[in-house]
């Protein structure tokens, strides 16, 4: 797409995708956690204790969540200094909302029993 210089930054059609970026990572986390929870339970990973009191199931789900939270946090950080344009500003707030949603949505992996 053609683009236009606004306050020194290129704003193109692709910027529209940034608006959805934060929640796309949230969706990826959702799919990955729901799928891997099913896989882990099917293979009995909740019985395999890796660290003291931490099972393979909880460990792999925590890793998945951490990676996704890190990705959204990075996105928020990148967008933080580019909020002078509407699309980038909206993308920033959407990413921040996605970060909050992800924490609230997936926090239960740390406390609930994974397979019952």
């Amino acid at each position, binding site marked *: *797409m053609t*683009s236009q210089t606004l306050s020194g930054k290129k*704003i193109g059609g692709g910027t529209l995708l940034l608006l959805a970026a934060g*929640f796309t990572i949230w969706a990826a986390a959702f799919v990955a956690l729901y799928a891997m929870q*099913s896989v882990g339970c099917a293979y009995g990973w909740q019985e395999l204790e890796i660290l003291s009191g931490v099972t393979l199931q909880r460990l792999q789900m925590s890793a998945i969540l951490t990676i996704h939270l890190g990705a959204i946090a990075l996105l928020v950080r990148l967008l933080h200094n580019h909020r002078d344009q509407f*699309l980038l500003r909206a993308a920033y707030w959407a990413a921040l*909302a996605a970060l909050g949603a992800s924490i609230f949505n997936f*926090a239960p992996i740390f406390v609930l029993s*994974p397979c019952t």
Partner: protein
Amino acid sequence: MSLDRKPDPIRLHKELTAIWETPPGWARLSAVNHTTLGKRFIITAFVFFAIGGLLAMLIRVQIATSSTAFVSPELYGQFFTMHGTVMMFLFAIPMFEGFAMYLLPKILGARDLAFPRLSAYGFWCYLFGGSILIVALLLGAAPDSGWFMYTPLSSSTYSPGINNDIWLLGITFVEISALSAAIEIIVSILRLRAPGMSLERMPIMAWYLLITAMMMLFGFPPLILGSILLELERAFDLPFFDPTRGGDSLLWQHLFWLFGHPEVYIIFLPAAGAISMMIPTFARHELVGYTAIVVAVVAVAFLSFGLWVHHMFTVGIPHLALAFFSAASGLVAIPTGVQIFAWIATLAQGRRPRWDVPMLYLGGFLFIFVLGGLTGVMVAMVPFNWQAHDTHFVVAHLHYVLVGGFVFPMMAATYYWLPHFTGRVSDHKISIPAFWLIFGGFNLTFFLMHLTGLRGMPRRIDAYPAEAGWDWLNLISSIGGFVMAAGFALFVVDLVLQVRFGTAAPRNPWGARTAEWAMPTPPPAYAFASLPQVQDRADRLDPNSLGTDLAAGKGYLPFARNGWMETLGVDMATGKPGEVIVLPNRTYKPLISGVLTCAFVLCLLFKFYWASLLVLALVVGSLLGWASGMGSRRDCALLEAGRGLVLPPHWQTERPPSWWAMVLVCAADATLFASLLFGGLFLWLVAPAWPPPLVAQPSLTIALFAAMMVIGASLSGRLAVSALRQKRSAIVMLRLAGVAQAAGFATFLLMALQVPDPTAHAHLAVIFVVLIYAAIHAGIGVILALHGLWRWHGGYLSALRSLDLRIAQLWHYYAAVTAIISLLATFLFAFLASHAEGPRS
């Protein structure tokens, strides 16, 4: 009109009308105009709403008391199934499509939508698909397994008749209409706006419709896939949902609700868009929190895809997964609340709000929808959900959400935009008693239904014992239902009176500040005599002066040229004009394609499978026939666009609307494909009766050959475009692409036929369908390659005019990628099914 002549408003009006208008008589069937088709969608949807309402009355009669014996259980099953089906698929979605179709070009400052023929085709698919369902109802053969068609009840073992086939095929037919509308809405919003209307200047409703259409694009394919799989099970015994052969009824529930819950927001968000247009007008203050609302709508759109399992809380899913879906179900209330607070803030910030009929209906919306939202948070909580599941409490909740969130705003919108539709205003006061009857009747019916549910009354039952103590609640609910029906009857009477006897409306009777009021009412077929230059947010316009200027030809394209239906294409983000889009004129082709598609569906319904292949060929031929006469046989010079602007015609630009449409088609298709792969993995992981007794053993050699063919086809398609752009012949490469796709098609078909007895186990059925999917896509690649040759020989292709081949190239790429994934999935599924350390071993 000559381009260098000073615009004469009257002559301009006559010349544009001659090009854009739909003639009377039988020629009405050739309509492609957005105003005409938008009205048709709205009226047809309202007729279906009346049918759905009538069914609701029959349901309420049956369960008014414990001793009513009004209809048989079989008929009652058809009534409640058809009530839900009609309201969800034939009323709510098409009503929103109709409003979008009618309003979008007008609020965006364009003359029409991006694909007028697709609008017409979508309408005929909707009308014919809906009619199939209604005729079935009249013949006593309507679907009867609930509007969500749960297996195994809807499987052929327990529902052997034609009833559920009608649902599966009829609804899929209607879904084609919805998907085509979604693509049309997205491309129109992103590419067909007034010059200068950057994304941040769009009227807020355009944001709502854009995001809703995106949701449809990704939300409907899982249901289409589910319907295809269930029909394949019913017709050909492929056991996707049969637990005795490796299938699982929960797969249906996942596929259905993956569509079904976003559907609720797909219905609500356009209504919220209409509310966001109306409230600033009546508050006399621009919308507060424009950016916050855009962010909130994005959040709702995504979150709504993460809560489908709250319809399945009782099926035995682990608590941790329940927590994910419960949390998402509660979370979605926050961005919804942001919108409601923005509306309240707009009212609070403005001068004294103007109280008129639309505001009365919006008051009804606010009261009912907020109550529905609160009970929504209740049923989002797992322990409460377990208690209330499948009771009338849920029926009450969903009606509060859907009637509050869609019907009331749509009635407000009807009163708000009726002067635009008709050019008349109402002198009658019937709208007020109509409101109170609907509002009072609704609460009487459904508030009490919460109590009936809490007292344990299950959904979908046609009778209950007197000892249950539900009689008086049900009787009052039924009386309330009839009061509500009387209110809707008055609403219809009021509309008829306004259309027939209302006094002429002044331009912009509400004092709105959006572009749709900058035109005469009722609107001319061409919408704007010339297109506006937008310099500020599009809800800060002065429609009165703007309308006068545009009618006087002071905007872009202030002329009629070559009998072309012209509008402007703009840059997606900035709104900078980039091309003159020449839209196709009125034609009977969409009607012919719609009739043939209907014939195809009927052939499947009555199991004339060989005949259906012939009809399918005719459907494809008729759709390809749309391209006949489109484009140009010679390279065009830049075209004048008015105000000193010169632009290329769309067929000589790099990424015109049709290119984006193909991108979106591939996105929807990819969602369907991903759902299919999810289904295969889900069954392997969760379904009973695994591992399968017989495992597919695909040949690696044949698979490699198939992969080479589809990769070769996509490379040939790419080289055909390169050859064309270098002013060389594309024939050789097009032929190669066609031959390679044909070889790919034959190879995938061969691989599918080599799968041993796909009816024996879901593992084999899934692999069979994945391979057939790849074969179909290669087959479409053959058709597109042949189409490219046809266009070449017709003289429509040149170095500047390579659009047809670039669209085909997109498809070749997509087909190659999905074919390779299909092959990998085939081997993966075979490996997982035969792996000794599987989850059940």
